[in-house]
């Protein structure tokens, strides 16, 4: 589904990504971990087609970035720690707007928006302005927005940031149930600092350290307690080297 080969990105003379190789199969849930400054954000921006790689090859669903970004973008749904929504529009208007932008066929648009609102449990607040929503509700709407066009790949950029315990639990639920993660319909890449949640959701873990993949492996090969140790070793090992 996603194939990354010796990806390099430099800002001026500073290399942020120094040759990343990564392969994500269809239906995998990859937890993308790494300390701040390890190049996680840059990596995601490249996958989203918002930044161009300096060198290397990135294939998403068989389409190459940055040459075929339109096709790539259509298969991507993004949930970020920023809401990516308009405060002064209602939940429904927000979704309708993005449905148009993603070219959801006019005939299905209304239905699709209502199904999504229902699935994230916001159908009663469809006509309310987003400004009046709590952080958790905004995040739910953001998930609905990301899934509107039924993308094959879901990118979650620190989705737990700023959520309280209840909202985070609800997000857990939404990720497994609504986003179709359990059924393996969608390929998911999630960046997070929360190792527990990473272990809980992910099928695979990749740890980025100083612009390179320091560790890659399936979660089935480790126990919950092992992941923090592996993380510390990978990150620590690279910094002292």
């Amino acid at each position, binding site marked *: *589904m996603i*194939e990354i080969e010796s990806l390099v990105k430099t800002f001026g003379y500073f290399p942020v990504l120094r040759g990343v190789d990564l392969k994500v199969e*269809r239906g995998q849930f990859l937890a993308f971990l790494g300390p701040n400054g390890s190049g996680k954000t840059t990596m995601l*921006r490249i996958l*989203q*087609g*918002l*930044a*161009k790689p300096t060198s290397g090859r990135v*294939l998403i*669903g*068989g*389409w*190459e970035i940055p*040459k*075929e*970004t*339109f*096709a790539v*973008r*259509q*298969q*991507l749904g*993004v949930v*970020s720690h*920023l*809401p*990516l*929504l*308009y*405060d*002064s*529009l209602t939940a429904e*208007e927000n979704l309708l*707007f*993005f449905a*148009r*932008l*993603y*070219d959801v066929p006019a005939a299905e648009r209304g239905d699709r928006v209502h199904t999504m609102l229902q699935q994230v449990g916001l159908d009663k607040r469809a006509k309310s*302005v987003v400004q009046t929503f709590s952080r958790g509700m905004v995040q739910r709407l953001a998930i609905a*927005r990301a899934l509107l066009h*039924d993308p*094959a*790949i879901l990118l979650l950029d620190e989705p737990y940031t700023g959520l309280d315990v209840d909202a985070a639990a609800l997000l857990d639920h939404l990720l497994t149930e609504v986003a*179709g993660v359990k059924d393996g*319909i*969608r390929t998911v890449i999630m960046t997070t600092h929360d190792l527990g949640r990473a272990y809980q959701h992910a099928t695979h873990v990749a740890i980025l350290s100083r612009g390179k993949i320091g560790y890659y492996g399936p979660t089935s090969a480790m126990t919950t307690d092992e992941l923090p140790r592996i993380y510390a070793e990978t990150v620590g090992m690279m910094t002292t080297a």
Partner: protein
Amino acid sequence: MSATTTTPETTSTTQPKKRRLRTPYFQVVASLAWKDLRAEARGREMVNAMLLFSIMAVLIFSFALELDRQAQEATVGGVLWVTIAFAGTLGLGRSLAAEKDKGSLDALLLAPVERSALFYGKMIGNFLFTLAVGFLLVFLLTVLFNVNLFRPVLWLIIVLGCLGFATTGTLVASMSVHARAREMLLPILLLPVILPIIISATRASTALLTELKTEDWLPWIQLLVVVDFVFLLAGFFLFDFIVEE
């Protein structure tokens, strides 16, 4: 997966239908403009601020320049365009800051849409808000300066001037939102660049209002049309480079 990119996997999961690769141009422009108008119709934060600012500016002008009738005719064009430029700058900064701060600019860029369509969509919103200021000023200046501004040719000049202003303004403001002191930087970046528009619009308005011959204001309107066209084209080519890394 093979190295060739000509045979991509079928990626749609629950929707087997073939989709268009990118959203139609006009659909993007229209929905973006609709979105801005809808949001503004609800909050009215931006338009209210712009209108209030222009009322205050005109009042200050009319106090500061206590003029006789003839001088009023000669000055009113300048007052009109200076006020439009400043009130418009106020609105522009807000319009693009609103997109950037909530990350919604990224959301727009994530969609499979042409960048220039986003530009024109944003520009239409800004154009209509600036135009609202322009037409409020027509009433206001007619009353306060006692010069009749209800003239179709003047309205044409206002439409052309606001169009040029909104085009250039959207382009420059989409750069200045990324800067540290963006509120300060926007007018500094914008005013030198929109000068061709402001000069020709002011000249045309003044020539028209002081009852000069057609030859005296027509060239300015022609120049305005040319400049508008150039900036609309510049937006088409340059906006890509502003948003794409």
